[in-house]
């Protein structure tokens, strides 16, 4: 017996995130640690809960172990519900055999029966790798008020960046008249944020038609949205002018973490009216040692800081030894930075060890040609031996 839900969220979390290289070698992108005590998926999940959406299907495929383990029964997000709650939806075998999710649209298509059980009027399709705070309920109100079949939140982006996005043209009332996925010569600067509200009956029809057309790819941006527009559905652009970041690359992951340290950038994790939920570590409070220097940084439970930390995001259970320096860096859970090590402009993955006096990354100002410089990245569970150097732009996925 399922009780009808007005709105069900489907969260696309199966992508590899190949441009995060070593960081997504063993985990899906939505499971990548972010912001000191979160993983990327905490942002859309918390948004759902704060928006009153209590039924979330999480579509998983690539390296799901960490992600499934993290989601558990959904209790940290208050999504362990008798009716609804969070459900991990990996691909499965059926009477016709087994098939992987072959695209974002196909992933939802293969889970039509999951959605139908709740008989929803609306379905929200979300992405597991965006950092933002958004009230989906407000967007749903707008969707209803405009009698829309599909509502797409849009950002106004600079024209030169517009060809990276799905770009739409909308009239004065916000009704979309044209949609182009990654156009070479963009005609507008309204960029799709890659999240959608649909009337479920309309989306279901579009998914089935798309699936039955072997000529088409199985992608929301490339197929479903243009198809629905061509079919004369009412499509609405919903302007969003708050902080939003797609953390698809190492640079954007680093940038988005640094944004949290910048008081002028409007992503406030400390707002009691819009709490960010996560699976909390069971660890004692952080200890800042006698000789430690700590400024402009975020640090989490279980850390022991004996060295100096500036402009950095330090996750739970990290140890930073005496004389070690961590600047402009992101140190993921459980990692040990031994005495005297120097970590600058770097991302260090979970449970890694940076040996004594090792040197990871450098300041970009030391480079005449900025293109030779980049964030240094050490993957998860890596040991960098005493005194070794990891140069800027290097991506380490084996012990050195």
């Amino acid at each position, binding site marked *: 017996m399922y009780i009808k839900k007005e709105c069900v969220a489907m969260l696309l979390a199966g992508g590899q995130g190949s441009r995060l290289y070593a960081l997504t070698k063993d985990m899906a992108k939505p499971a990548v640690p972010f*912001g*000191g*005590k979160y993983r990327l998926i905490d942002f859309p999940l918390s948004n759902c809960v704060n928006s009153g959406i209590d039924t979330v299907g999480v579509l998983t495929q690539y390296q799901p172990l960490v992600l499934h383990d993290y989601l558990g029964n959904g*209790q*940290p997000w208050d999504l362990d519900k008798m009716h609804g709650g969070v459900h991990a939806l990996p691909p499965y075998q059926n009477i016709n055999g087994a098939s992987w999710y072959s695209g974002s649209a196909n992933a939802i298509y293969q889970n039509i029966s999951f959605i139908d059980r709740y008989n929803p009027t609306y379905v929200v399709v979300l992405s597991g790798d965006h950092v933002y705070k958004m009230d989906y309920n407000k967007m749903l109100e707008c969707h209803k008020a405009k009698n829309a079949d599909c509502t797409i939140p849009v950002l106004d982006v600079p024209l030169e960046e517009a060809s990276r996005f799905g770009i739409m043209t909308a009239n004065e009332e916000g009704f979309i008249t044209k949609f182009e996925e990654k156009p070479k010569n963009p005609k507008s600067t309204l960029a799709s944020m890659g999240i959608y509200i649909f009337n479920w009956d309309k989306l279901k029809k579009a998914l089935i038609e798309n699936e039955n057309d072997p000529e088409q790819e199985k992608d929301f941006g490339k197929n479903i949205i243009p198809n629905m527009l061509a079919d004369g559905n009412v499509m609405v652009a919903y302007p969003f002018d708050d902080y939003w970041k797609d953390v698809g690359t190492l640079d954007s992951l680093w940038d988005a973490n640094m944004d949290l*340290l910048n008081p002028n950038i409007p992503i406030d*994790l*400390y707002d009691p009216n819009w*709490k*960010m*939920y*996560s699976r*909390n570590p*069971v*660890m*004692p*409070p*952080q*200890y*800042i*040692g*006698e*000789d*430690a*220097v*700590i*400024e*402009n*940084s*975020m*640090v*989490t*439970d279980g850390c*022991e800081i004996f060295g100096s*930390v500036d402009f950095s*995001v*330090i996750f739970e259970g990290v140890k930073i030894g005496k004389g070690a320096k961590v600047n402009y860096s992101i140190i993921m859970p459980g990692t040990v930075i031994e005495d005297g090590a120097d970590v600058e402009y770097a991302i260090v993955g979970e449970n890694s060890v940076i040996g004594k006096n090792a040197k990871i990354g450098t300041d970009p100002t030391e480079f005449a040609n900025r293109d030779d410089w980049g964030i240094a990245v050490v993957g998860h569970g890596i040991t960098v031996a005493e005194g070794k150097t990891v140069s800027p732009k290097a991506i380490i996925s084996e012990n050195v």
Partner: protein
Amino acid sequence: MSDKNVLGLIFSNLHDESINDLTRRRTMGSVLFGGRYRLIDFPLSAMVNSGVGEVGVITKKNYQSLLDHLGNGREWDMSRKNGGLHLLPPFSHNQDGIYRGRLEALYGVWEFVMRSNADYILLSDCDIVANMEYDKIIDAHIASGADITAVYAKGNVRMDESHTATVFGVADNGQIADVLISPEMSGDSNISLNTYVIGKTLLKNIVMDAKPRNLVDFEKDVLQAKVSTLKLMGYEYTEYYSRISSMQSYFEANLALLNTENRRALFKADSPIYTKVRDNPPAKYGINASVKNSLIGDGCIVDGKVENCILFRGVKVGAGTSLKNCIIMQDTVIGKKCGLQNVITDKKVTITDGRLLTGSSRCPLFLAKESEI
């Protein structure tokens, strides 16, 4: 992990009077400690980690904060179909609920104890901060054939704290030969950690026998009175602990956690101390922050100078402010250019810009919950 069937009973209200300021509106068990904990987290987590699968928490009064903290016990993994955590508020007691001592409290909850399948009962209070391996204590109890095993630690008792202590005389074979309650003394002694193991049948006999005789006090009417007729064994606890018996010892026990050796002895990776989750973001340090030798909870926003302090979750420290030897409880907001030394603030205290407040290490200045300065 103990394979024995053990029921844990935690007394949340005993010792309330030793830190009156902090227990005015809460139980001893719900007194805040160590940057993110309540005192009951220590015995409760240790019971969970020792395989004690069923725990009753005995309350008396002022227990709203305790109920709120413990909830259904999920955060201690004690929300169970069989066993798990049981809160025993006074209305479940046989009498009017206001028991006068440990024995009378046990009589009040005896129906609950009877329903348990346990063979052994583990009793603990909330005045000891430790991460005890209770399974070892239970095994020792069984191996020695004791009627009652009492846990003690060799330590120095101060004259001004001895009135809250029970002290044992322990023979060479480990048997307790003498029980002194609130002795006026100082110096090295075997201080009771108010932790006992006893067989259920024996405890039943003791509790039922005490009722018609109007005996209410476990230490006086059982341990002391029966020291020669029962086999009372001492179990010497040699690991890290602190005993909270006054505001001063509370202050010292908190600051003792700034010592890395102490902290690692109390917070062991394989036996974590659980507590209620608050979903705070990480602590954030501003451009003016300078923090030395301090424990900082998640959700703090620090832009001032903090030295030898414990900041609980969600504390804000403004720019130009200096804190030294302070314990600042959760959600307290300290403005700019303040100076605080040897101060304990309870929860949600507001200190406006420019205030200077100083206590002493013997007598820290205390600011009550939700007060505004």
